[in-house]
């Protein structure tokens, strides 16, 4: 009896969900589907066996996704999703590929070769036209994808034809590792050859007068509970940030508006307060997950999905009220976010105050929707708020501990899909 195959059929996939700019709608559908299947999203690709990519990827993100894919242990599958795809079916096929995976089936061609620098506004299937390149070895598959917008892309299942390429990568990796083992011992003085070909960290001065090593750590673009498209380059000494730089990875397709302000939100009949509440729930669930309260975050996600699917029903309202009360009354949460990342009153209203003030404001938005108050006049320009958050971030993060960095980013939660198209091109230092 093949025990491995028997065990493989019994595993429940652990997906790692990556959201690209413009992929919010797909992400919501994916998260809803995962919740219903009780597939726990993984906090890191290393702990995952399924890489789920939501939305269109450009070259930079594709390279990041390829790196992440190389870090995932086998068995693994890659599921690429776009707005037109049938999420449930794609996940099913991904799961099936995982359950029947053999060593060869865990390969997939790099995305970076096929990605396009920017989505083509002239084509309504911007993502698809780019992705069809990846199957260049299998012409029929790409033709298929052109015909049917909803063609599924679970790579582990569909790309056995492209094994050789992935296998080549794997081989290179091994050489790399073996080489590293040798250089650690064989080297006597001389050059700076190090394991993995990497240098040691450099030193830099610090606010307490010690000159110790400085580590460069990237937060985003591929990170769990992280605003889509945001990349934060940190220089750390110990766990404290010495320097922070912000940039945006990818660009939202110019032909579609920001998800949360799209008219009718993809055909859903929702009023203004409900949409704002759903957006606030989405943002809060990220903050709660980062604050180490994944259960409250998961409930927030559920409330968001229910609101988007059915609107503000009575049962939803009761459940939402309970959840709001629980979060608002959490002294521990308040205690850990008080005084963090204070933003002066001249910034856009949604950003003002400390982290606590910001998450409380989001709770107020949700509460208004629960109470079915008439839409409060909110002249919030999401684009301006996101831009302003990007400008503020480096100064807010300097000198903060890493956990505080995550909380501050999650509380500002810049919606980069709302950025004006030209603004997204510029990196912010």
């Amino acid at each position, binding site marked *: 009896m093949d025990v491995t195959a028997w065990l493989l059929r019994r595993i429940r996939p652990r997906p790692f969900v990556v959201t690209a700019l413009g992929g919010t709608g797909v992400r919501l559908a994916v998260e809803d589907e995962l919740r219903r299947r009780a597939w726990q999203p993984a906090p890191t690709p290393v*702990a995952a066996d399924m890489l789920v990519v939501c939305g269109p990827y450009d070259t930079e993100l594709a390279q990041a996704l390829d790196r992440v894919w190389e870090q995932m242990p086998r068995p693994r599958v890659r599921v690429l999703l776009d707005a037109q795809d049938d999420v449930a079916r794609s996940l099913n096929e991904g799961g099936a590929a995982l359950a029947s995976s053999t060593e060869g089936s865990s390969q997939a061609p790099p995305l970076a070769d096929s990605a396009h620098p920017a989505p083509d506004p002239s084509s309504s299937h911007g993502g698809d036209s780019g992705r069809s390149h990846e199957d260049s070895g299998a012409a029929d598959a790409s033709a298929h994808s052109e015909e049917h917008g909803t063609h599924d892309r679970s790579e582990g299942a569909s790309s056995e034809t492209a094994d050789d390429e992935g296998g080549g990568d794997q081989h290179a990796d091994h050489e790399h590792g073996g080489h590293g083992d040798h250089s650690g011992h064989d080297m006597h003085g001389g050059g700076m050859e190090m394991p*993995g070909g*990497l240098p040691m960290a450099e030193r830099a001065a610090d606010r307490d007068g010690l000159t110790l090593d400085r*580590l460069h750590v990237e937060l985003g673009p591929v990170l769990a509970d992280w605003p889509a498209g945001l990349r934060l380059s940190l220089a750390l000494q*110990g766990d404290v940030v010495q320097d922070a730089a912000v940039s945006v990875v990818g660009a939202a397709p110019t032909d579609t508006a920001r998800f949360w302000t799209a008219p009718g939100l993809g055909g859903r009949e929702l009023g203004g307060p409900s949409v704002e509440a759903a957006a606030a729930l989405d943002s809060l669930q990220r903050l709660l997950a980062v604050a180490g*309260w994944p259960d409250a975050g998961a*409930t927030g996600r*559920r409330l968001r999905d229910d609101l988007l699917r059915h609107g503000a029903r009575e049962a939803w309202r009761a459940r939402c009220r309970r959840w709001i009360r629980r979060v608002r009354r959490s002294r521990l949460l308040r205690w850990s976010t008080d005084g963090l990342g204070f933003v002066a009153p001249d910034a856009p209203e949604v950003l003002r105050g400390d982290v606590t003030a910001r998450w409380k404001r989001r709770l107020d938005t949700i509460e208004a929707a629960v109470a079915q108050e008439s839409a409060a006049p909110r002249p919030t320009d999401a684009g301006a708020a996101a831009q302003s958050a990007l400008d503020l971030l480096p100064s807010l993060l300097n000198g903060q501990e*890493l956990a505080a960095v995550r909380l501050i980013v999650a509380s500002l939660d810049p919606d980069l899909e709302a950025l004006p198209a030209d603004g997204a091109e510029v990196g912010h230092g």
Partner: protein
Amino acid sequence: MGDPMPLWGMLLLPIGLLLLGYGGAAWSAILTARAAGSPVSLAAATPARETARLLVEQRRTIPGADTLLWRLGGATVPVAAVLAVLVLPVADRAAADLSIGVVWFNAMEVLIWVAVWTVGWGANSAWGLVGAYRFLIQGLAYALPHMFALTTAALGAGSLRVSDIAQAQENLWFAALMPVAFGVYLLSAMAMAYWGPFDPAVARDLAGGAAAELTGVDRLVFRSGRYLMLTAAAAMAVPLFLGGGAGPLLPGWAWTVLKTAAVLALLVWLGHRLPTVRVDRFTEIGWVVLIPATLLQALVVAIVVLVV
């Protein structure tokens, strides 16, 4: 002190720990499913499916990583947890009822510091490194209050032998006599198993922290070790604060198991109910609030011991 535990008891001890630990993991999965609105019926099997997944998963090496320490650290977690229950009296019998049982438990549980730090350090990853150091500073913040809580229980019985402490609670459970010490013990039980609000070392904001780079069987051993440690800490709360195996109708071992399960369920639930306590804020609490509080508790108990 009862008769020494028979040989089969020593085999049963780790197995019992494993079963209770699985129960804790399943309960945790149920709570997660309930919060997310996922089908709860699937949740009880989640740890088993996760075990299957990690068993078949590929292992990993990282250039420049200290692989030896990385793997050794992970394997130390379950071993330390099993060694910690050496002094646990089950039905008046411990595997070894040491005269300094409390100190033994303390020493074994501190081995987790080494284990988690090593796992974080060994991976040559920035997440792991930050997580490893978070665990150390959290340890420095809770260790002294934790030791005072242990000492207070020993003080109430006038003995460092765990079975003596359990027997001294015939009239009044120490949980009632010394609530502060009991509370601090529960807190440190979660902290030593990097569980719940005291999990910043392996938190989501660090992409898994010390455990960020573990795959396959290495992750499996590290994670099950965590549940074993949580169970061991819950089990030790029973003789130290909850009257040991004493109880009506059922035999002593059954009461020990029941009480352990109850404490474990409480700890797991607390872990789901509360957000993570950030170490940079907890350090000050541990030193400025918890140390004086536990010392006052010890003083009160010392006076009670003198008067009664």
